[in-house]
């Protein structure tokens, strides 16, 4: 009887993981720390809109012309919505789970991006990288030559100036007069 038990114990072996002494192996589908590649990011804010707990936020400094992307890991619920909505693949959930910190400030990650100023009124209106990306997409869609130049000029104009120039075109006014 006891012999049987001892045999069973030997068969089963050690169940306890050796974790802090050997690195942990997590499964392939594990959703760990969202890893942000700031160079692939174009500050489009799709992730900040999708983030359920608002761990991802965007802040705009209109005076300096800077848009700041930031993540607070203390609030993240590791749902992966940011990865799903990111058009450029700049954010991806990794396998990292060792996120504990002594200092709360270490839970933040930030990235600053420049805003583009409107070519008419000079007001900052959209991230410069995002406008670049749109232009590349337009080229990919098959636009070229004069049409592309026209779109390029339109891209550099803020929405309110665009509206004004559209009205001017409609009523046949000189654009400079508006």
């Amino acid at each position, binding site marked *: 009887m006891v012999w049987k038990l001892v045999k069973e114990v030997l068969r089963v072996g050690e169940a306890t993981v050796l974790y802090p002494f050997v690195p942990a192996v997590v499964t392939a589908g594990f959703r760990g720390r969202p890893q942000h590649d700031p160079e*692939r990011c174009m500050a489009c804010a799709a992730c900040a809109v999708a983030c359920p707990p608002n761990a991802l936020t965007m802040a705009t400094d209109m005076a300096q012309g800077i848009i700041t992307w930031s993540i607070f890991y203390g609030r993240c*619920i590791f749902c992966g919505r940011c990865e799903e909505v990111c058009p450029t693949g700049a954010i991806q959930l990794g396998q990292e789970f060792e996120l504990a910190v002594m200092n709360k400030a270490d839970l933040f990650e930030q990235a600053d991006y420049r805003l583009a100023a409107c070519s008419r009124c000079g007001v900052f209106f959209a991230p410069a990288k995002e406008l670049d990306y749109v232009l590349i997409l337009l080229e990919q869609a098959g636009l070229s030559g004069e049409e592309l130049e026209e779109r390029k000029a339109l891209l550099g104009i803020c929405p309110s100036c665009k509206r004004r120039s559209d009205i001017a075109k409609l009523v046949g006014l000189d654009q400079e007069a508006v």
Partner: protein
Amino acid sequence: MAEDYAKATLLGASRYTIHVDEQTTRLKAALLKDIRRSVFVYRVDCGGCNGCEIEIFATLTPVFDVERFGIKVVSSPRHADILLYTGSMTRSMRVPALRAYHAAPDPKVCVAYGACGCSGGIFHDVYCVWGGADQILPIDAYIPGCPPTPYATIYGFAMALGLLGQKLKATYHVQGENEHVQPRYPKIPLDLRIDIERASRRMAGYWHGKRIADSFLDMIQTADSQVDENVQAYLRQEDDPRLTEIFARLQQIFLAHPKGK
């Protein structure tokens, strides 16, 4: 102490921290130095969903076995060295949280556990939520996660006790001069990409759907002529009937498109 309660009970007194004097700080350093393998933890649930509690108990099971390190959960704050605060600190739990804090003998270490304990988590902007244990208590260590896995819990404790170092550091990036983003799949027509992404998400759900669509698009992008062989090799390697079915559908869509033909 009475003053603390008075302050905490005041409506609108959402942010104030207990003053930790120099003597207590010195004692705390001595505690962390001498505690070794006798760590008594008292768990305070301040309005959590119980996910964190389940993971704490998973950490105590033979598989993860934190008693290897002498970490033991006790049932009274009067025996505790570490107070483990879970939950988003709701209005009605703030006074019991303070009572547990004052009941524990000095010196003590406070740990915020889970996304809610660290910051209020997904409930951070709810009207009755104070937004994390650090809003009313001096917190020494933060263990984020929703909930933190047993591995993350072991790491958090090992770090709080000074056995392991902290890995995460704050980062700050400023846009460089020539930073441009290129589209991920420049060779694939937009309509084909959208059809593939939609079909994949419909069949596998949002997160896995995106990952599966990406792996298929990568294959189309890299090898124009031998997509079929690559897909078959990948499916053999993965050996997952669900993935095979999804890929079969994606391939149908690809072949129906003028580019695929």
